[in-house]
């Protein structure tokens, strides 16, 4: 069956080191991290990736008070992406627009806040906010964007742990191909730095990063890595069928040519390199490509001791004997943006189609020999011979794996 070709035509993002693709990319090439120390309820200081986008650009103050941080991030990213893609959005049939937002979790922040709130009133639940339910329904981040953009088509989240950023985009591809929508806004968001539970959970797991210098705390592949820096952020793309994008003369960032999602079915937390490798191979097969056709592999590696090694094992197997395939990572700069990770990390590499540069993995002072993949780009950007295809890995708890392949657009 001949399937529609699907392209990315707009990018809207906020990350701990940039509130536009241009700023973000510049900081990735210059090695500038965006991790800081914040006060966390019950825990004291923790390291986190904090975004400073202008929420009032697209929302009223009351909307910020009533809504959620994830909703606000979605709105900012969606509106930025729509503006970037150059479409006359006023004239678009809003019933044919889909919003698909990947999330690792949603509702923890708002529930923790309410429990804290009623703790100030001797746990009397009559002080529990009536805003709690609309804030915590799992479609909240997409729903708030639909309200803001007056989109009447399907708007919902895709829950997929830390693979969710890829999953949002993959879902948009599927819905466009099925003809369910004509225009999609998709990717992932995270408000996770607002919840102590995420931090406390990683700390209890021995997987929360700590370093005296926040900018050096997230250090995938380094022998001294000691865990995850939790971050907030978001990245949403506008995604269209190729014929629609060409008809309106849209700028095309790249074509989604392959993807795959599978499950380890082995452990709640520990990854499974065999399934990760299968996932990457299946994405390549769908794209009709060989491993050597990929010029950048974005690793999911979160700077946990085992996770990094296992992903490197999987990549080493799939991309053995691929001298032109560069391997990099973005979490050293921005930490782990959870549901936004996959989509933000892809955005960090997309400009490589234009400038040919591959941003490095930073904070690798002593490369772990078990992570020493050939062509791992470390600490300094490299100029690639060519960049025609990117494979974007994003994995999550309960063993969900995703790989997405974006190709330079050629007619």
């Amino acid at each position, binding site marked *: 069956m001949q399937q529609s070709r699907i392209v990315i035509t707009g990018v809207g993002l906020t990350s701990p080191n940039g509130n536009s693709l241009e700023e973000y990319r510049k900081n990735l090439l210059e090695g500038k991290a965006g991790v800081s120390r914040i006060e966390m309820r019950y825990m004291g200081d923790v390291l986190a990736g904090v975004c400073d986008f202008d929420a009032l650009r697209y929302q*009223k*103050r*009351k909307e910020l*008070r009533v809504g959620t941080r994830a909703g606000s991030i979605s709105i900012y990213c969606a509106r930025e992406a729509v503006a970037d893609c150059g479409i006359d959005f006023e004239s678009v049939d809003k019933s044919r627009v889909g919003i698909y937002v990947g999330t690792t979790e949603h509702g923890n922040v708002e529930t923790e806040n309410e429990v804290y709130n009623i703790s100030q*009133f001797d746990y009397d639940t*009559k*002080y529990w*906010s*009536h805003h709690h339910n609309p804030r915590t329904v799992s479609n909240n981040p997409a729903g708030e964007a639909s309200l803001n953009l007056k989109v009447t088509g399907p708007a919902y989240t895709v829950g997929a742990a830390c693979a969710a950023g890829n999953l949002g985009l993959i879902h948009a591809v599927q819905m466009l191909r099925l003809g369910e929508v004509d225009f999609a806004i998709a990717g992932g968001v995270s408000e996770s730095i607002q919840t102590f539970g995420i931090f406390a959970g990683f700390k209890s797991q021995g997987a929360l990063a700590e370093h005296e210098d926040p900018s050096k705390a997230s250090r995938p592949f380094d022998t001294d890595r000691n865990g995850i820096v939790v971050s907030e952020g978001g990245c949403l793309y506008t995604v269209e069928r190729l014929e629609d994008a060409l008809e309106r003369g849209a700028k095309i960032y790249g074509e989604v040519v392959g993807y795959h999602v599978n499950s380890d079915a082995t452990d709640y937390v520990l990854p499974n390199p065999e399934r990760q490798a299968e996932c990457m191979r299946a994405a390549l097969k769908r794209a009709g490509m060989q491993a050597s056709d990929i010029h950048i592999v974005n690793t999911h590696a979160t700077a946990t001791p085992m996770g990094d090694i296992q992903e490197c094992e999987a990549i080493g197997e799939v991309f053995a004997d691929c001298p032109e395939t560069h391997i990099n990572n973005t979490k050293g700069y921005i930490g782990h943006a959870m549901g936004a990770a996959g989509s933000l990390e892809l955005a960090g590499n997309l400009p490589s189609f234009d400038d040919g540069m591959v941003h490095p993995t930073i904070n690798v002072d002593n490369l772990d020999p078990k992570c020493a993949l050939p062509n791992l780009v470390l600490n300094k950007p490299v100029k690639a011979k060519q960049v025609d295809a990117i494979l974007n890995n994003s994995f999550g708890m309960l063993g969900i794996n995703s790989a997405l392949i974006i190709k330079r657009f050629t007619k």
Partner: protein
Amino acid sequence: MTNEECKQVVIDIIAEIAPDEDVSDINPDVALREQLDLDSMDFLDIVMELRKKHGIEVPEADYGELASLGSCAAYLTPKFNALV
């Protein structure tokens, strides 16, 4: 508490829950919803803030008493004074 002081308490709450609104010139005899961008959830916020900040309970059957600034003051002032 006087009626005027009670009106100010309500205005302060509205300023907090509807921070985009101009609360400097509210007509006390006209419904709040006709002058300000307030919805039913906002009125629930007013009820909640009265409870949290002032220990005032407004039963659901009486929500209509909060329609205007004037009716708020007429309804709430005796409740405030009963607290003292």
